[in-house]
């Protein structure tokens, strides 16, 4: 029986494995974390439907168990070839093809020092908010409820200064989603989204955006926050230009939420090196082409699924996983 190693146990990895199983091919998932699930773990609800991430994850896990697919956790990959994968501990696993589904890394907001993440209380990232939502307790550092919240788009995206020129696509809609979730929790709070461009590319996204504006009275300010500073009463004073009025804008908020972007994994360079894979300027893996071979790498027998090639949402990721699995299966059945 042919065997495929899938690097990465997130949504993409699991879906790929399931599809391969359907195609009668043995799949082994390698997950570097202690538990499979990838970024879906610790995410609260998925846009645009507010479907609990847990729901999707549990179902995927259930199917994996049902299909008795092996997941090896705590196994980080050092290098790979189409026929073998070497783990960090030097152990070498042989296979007939590899699907790279190692996903992305969240941008470290602390790098944008001027926003004061990890420096002032009450500056959070979108990931923190998802965590808090899961814990069922969203609050300021002192436990009080926020009366005014600002969400800043494009943190670590479209920013030459941190060498992340690409657009992470999903932050816009995440900002809208979180604004609505927060509004629901704190109906009294005023919520402001600071954006450069609003990119609502997915089905139902634009509608959600409208709803946030119309139903939830979320304010959208076209301007990028440039500085954040603490105030005496422990709030955050932010500075931006309200570009639509052409005037500098200052306001104090109880919470500043940074919508952190997706960036390529730190080890992607090393992996690409080991297998001779091509990467795009953004650091993500580059598919053979963007149309007819967009789940195949430039190396025969190595395939891509999910955000390892570019920022994507969960839906796109799951679809791509199937495509990748089929491509791998066809390759093996040749």
């Amino acid at each position: 029986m042919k065997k495929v190693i899938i690097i990465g146990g997130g949504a993409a990895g699991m879906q790929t494995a399931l599809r391969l199983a359907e195609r009668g091919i043995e799949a082994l998932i390698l997950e570097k974390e202690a538990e499979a699930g990838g970024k879906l773990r610790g995410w609260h609800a998925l846009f645009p439907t507010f479907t609990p991430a847990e729901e999707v994850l549990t179902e995927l896990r259930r199917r994996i168990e049902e299909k008795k697919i092996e997941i090896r956790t705590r196994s980080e990959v050092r290098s790979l070839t189409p026929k073998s994968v070497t783990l960090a501990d030097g152990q070498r696993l042989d296979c007939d093809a590899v699907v790279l589904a190692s996903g992305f890394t969240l941008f470290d907001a602390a790098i944008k020092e001027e926003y004061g993440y990890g420096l002032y209380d009450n500056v959070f990232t979108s990931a923190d908010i998802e965590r808090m939502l899961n814990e069922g307790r969203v609050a300021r550092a002192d436990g009080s409820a926020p009366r005014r919240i600002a969400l800043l788009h494009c943190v670590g995206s479209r920013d030459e200064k941190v060498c992340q020129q690409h657009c992470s696509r999903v932050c816009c809609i995440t900002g809208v989603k979180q604004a609505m979730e927060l509004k629901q929790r704190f109906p009294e709070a005023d919520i402001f989204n600071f954006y450069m461009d609003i990119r609502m590319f997915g089905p139902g996204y634009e509608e959600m955006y409208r709803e946030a504006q119309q139903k939830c009275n979320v304010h959208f300010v076209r301007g990028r926050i440039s500085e954040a500073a603490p105030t005496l009463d422990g709030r955050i004073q932010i500075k931006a230009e309200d570009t639509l009025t052409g005037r500098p804008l200052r306001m104090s908020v109880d919470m500043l939420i940074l919508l952190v972007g997706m960036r390529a994994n730190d080890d992607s360079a090393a992996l690409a090196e080991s297998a001779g894979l091509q990467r795009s300027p953004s650091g993500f893996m580059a598919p053979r082409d963007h149309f007819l071979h967009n789940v195949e790498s430039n190396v025969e027998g190595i395939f891509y699924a999910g955000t390892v090639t570019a920022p994507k949402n969960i839906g796109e990721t799951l679809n791509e996983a199937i495509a990748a699995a089929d491509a791998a299966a066809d390759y093996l059945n040749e």
Partner: protein
Amino acid sequence: MASINFGYTISKPRAIDVDRNNLRRSDEILHEMPELQTCIGCGSCTAVCTAGNLTEFNFRRVHTLVRRGEYQGAYEEMNKCMLCGKCRLVCPRGINTRGVVMLIKHKLGDL
């Protein structure tokens, strides 16, 4: 040759009339500093601007107007800039903003 004063004058149109504006200087500026074209108008420059916090000076607005061929007063506006460089430090497009200020002043100085 206004011969009669009726007690009012013809208000000038507010529209940016790109047909009428002479874009030569604007083209020269963009030719020497193509990166200026990459501005996405996020306003970071204006938000951090040291001069902009003390005056009405709005770097983004002025250079955008200049790109449209609206040179009137641009030189005087740019003269408010202190060239401190904060804007260059925050520009997500990595535009050489200080260079832009000096270039615009150089090109429009003789207006």
